[in-house]
């Protein structure tokens, strides 16, 4: 097993480069109705999270109030204003997943990762969150790591899933 910590793509680019990248994205979407959420998605992908300073840049460039940008960010649980781990684990706790044992997954993951919901592991690898239905009710209990959906997860599978990252 490779002992060297996986390098986060985000950390290799310097901040300025990321800001420029985000500025380009804003230019691309500017003037299009309802593009704020799209921009926030991409900005979070590039920067990792959405700190106040980045929100200011977005608000200023789109000529909308900062309070509106922050309002949207704080409304959607997908957006984060604090630094996140390299990978985000989202355990679904929608009704179906909850009934089929989603809660047990949460408990086991808290043990494995040694963190609570909403926190990031010490090595910065995982951020652990819960989701309210990811639309995979037929595959309950489900969880996501980044964009990958894991279906019918049981607590014994968790360790092997995590080891892939």
């Amino acid at each position, binding site marked *: 097993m490779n002992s060297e910590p996986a390098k986060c793509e985000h950390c290799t680019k310097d*901040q*300025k480069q990321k*800001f420029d990248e985000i*500025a380009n994205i804003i230019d691309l979407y500017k003037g299009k109705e309802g593009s704020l959420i799209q921009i926030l998605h991409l900005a979070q992908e590039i920067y990792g999270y959405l*700190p*106040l*300073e*980045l*929100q*200011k*840049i977005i*608000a*200023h*460039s789109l000529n*909308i*109030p*900062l*309070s*509106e*940008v*922050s*309002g949207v960010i*704080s*409304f959607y649980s997908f957006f984060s*204003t604090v630094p996140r781990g390299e990978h985000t684990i989202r355990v679904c706790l929608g009704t179906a997943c909850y009934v089929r044992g989603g809660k047990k997954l949460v408990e086991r993951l808290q043990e494995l990762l040694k963190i609570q919901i909403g926190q990031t592991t010490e090595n910065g690898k995982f951020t652990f969150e819960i989701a309210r239905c990811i639309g995979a009710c037929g595959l309950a209990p489900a969880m996501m790591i980044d964009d990958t959906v894991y279906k019918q997860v049981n607590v014994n599978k968790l360790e092997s899933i995590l080891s892939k990252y």
Partner: protein
Amino acid sequence: MINITINGKPLSVAKGSTIMEAAKTNHISIPNLCHLEDVHQFGSCRICVVEVKGAKTLQASCITEVREGMVINTHTDKVRKARKVLYELLLSDHTKDCLSCKRNRSCELQELGRTLGIEETRFEGSRSKFYPDSSVSITRDMAKCILCRRCVTVCNDIQGAGVLNAQHRGFNTTISPAMDLPLNSVDCTYCGQCTVVCPVGALKETDSIQKVWSALNDESRRVIVQVAPAVRVALGEEFGLEPGTQVTGKMVAALRGLGFSEVFDTNFAADLTIMEEGTELLNRLEKAIKGDKTTLPMITSCSPGWIKYIEHAYPRFLDNLSTCKSPHTMLGALIKSYYAEKINVNPHDIYVVSVMPCTAKKFEIVREEMQNNGVPNVDAVLTTRELASMIHEAGIDFARLEDEPFDNPLGMSTGAADIFGVTGGVMEAALRTVYELVTGRELPFDGLHVTPIVGLDTVKTAEIKIENPVEAYDYLDGVTVKVAVTSGLKGAGELMEQIEKGESPYHFIEVMGCPGGCITGGGQPRSQDPEVRLKRLRGLYKEDEEKVLRKSHENPFITSIYDEYLEYPGSYKSHELLHTHYVKRGEFNEYLNSDILDNALRDLEKRRASDKPAEPEVSDHRLREEIESARIIALEAENARLKSELEDTLETVNIFKQVIAGGTHKHN
């Protein structure tokens, strides 16, 4: 017209009206909470629900339009029960400390409870935990907020400031600046319009009553008060009088009754402003015509909400502002210099209180520019609402007071000063004097009213051609002076956009921060009367028309203050006392702050407006000081409160001691 049935009664109502409007025109009142006529139609509180035949659920009548053949029932058992449940749910996450709330008996939530016949609260659940956020001007207490979002609408759609918005979701929702930042660290203009529309005690002016009482009780201080023009046509509303009623004489009597040693009129300084600002305008016009360097259009600087707005939103255009201080700070400066010398009192021992229709003035007086020789021009600002509350507290029977006049030499004013409180008024007052000064003739308008700029439209414009001027103003011959007037920060934003693009055709612009001008300032009485702005406007114009002298330069005390003290408009002395400069703040206070990402933002801005040179750096001491001073004011108020509590307790202890001593004595 559309035919509908409300409560069994067939009615014909206007197409496009909502159920609530249709009901109202037919004298059926539907209870509501978040709705605010002409301002806020949002449907968030659901109190106004009604039964519509055929609809699956109850409909919010404030946002549902009438349709042909609609059958509506507004007060069925189902509807009344639903309203009660909704109301009780609102209460389940409310502090319910009505007896010690500033809005006691003026609270719309309280009133609604009475209307709905609420006698119990069945729901006890989790309660949101919030801490009050206190700036110098406005205090937010989100524990009392009912999330109606009226403040969000005025802040965003009417004022265009965009400081408040809903943050977070569901039970955790708060109405707050971005990232729950405190008000004093964002670009809030302190216009206070949010405090006027708030139905409960969640948004209000930061209290100054306590410190004014302390000053009045301090024998070593001479406490002098001044009153802004707009207060005199609104104060009466707090005592049951019709909006627009002129209560100038009673107000002066009440202020004497409260114990102020002199009652001066901010109007006097309004006349003075016209002399100073008029001279400044003529200087700028002369320079522009002769090709010298100057900045036009010149923009008025009386409204501190507007000043803070431009400092945040258009920091590159501060040179367009007139350098005149606002009238009440001018008067404060004169009280502590000219008048102090006259009565031979140390300026340090004078305490100046301004009664203003405004919450932004509370911030204005703590600015470091608003002091001379280390003495603040004004020590405390009371809003119209706060003055009313002090009058109530002092047991003064306002309605029965005999009229009294202002004190001189700083209490006399002309009609031109009265209209300073209404949109278009400062411009009209300036034109009355400037036109006459330049041409030697009276302003050619009926009754001296510049009709195109009278009224409540957002942006108003006028043109005045100057012909046959007196010799000194030859250079203005044939010049058409173009002016614009706006009230409300959204309109101001529009005019600033023009200036930014270099397309502004105007020479002189009047901006008042609140829609309609000071008559509907953030410190004015809250009113349910949709005609309130018009009524107060008429009140001020009437005040003007009733005066013999209606042009600022005719005020004999203005003439004598220049003769005795200030020399001439724009003199060294008047610059020292009556003029000021402004502070670049930026949208995010970035000119006052200096961290890396703010620099990044500034770079971005520079890239986008590459034609402009880089701005000089300003250290962040200023922002820190302002936040600090806000904290000090809050602490001082708390200190004063605790002190008076302690005194009360000591008194009680003494009374008990006496009682016990008496009892023991008897026993023996």
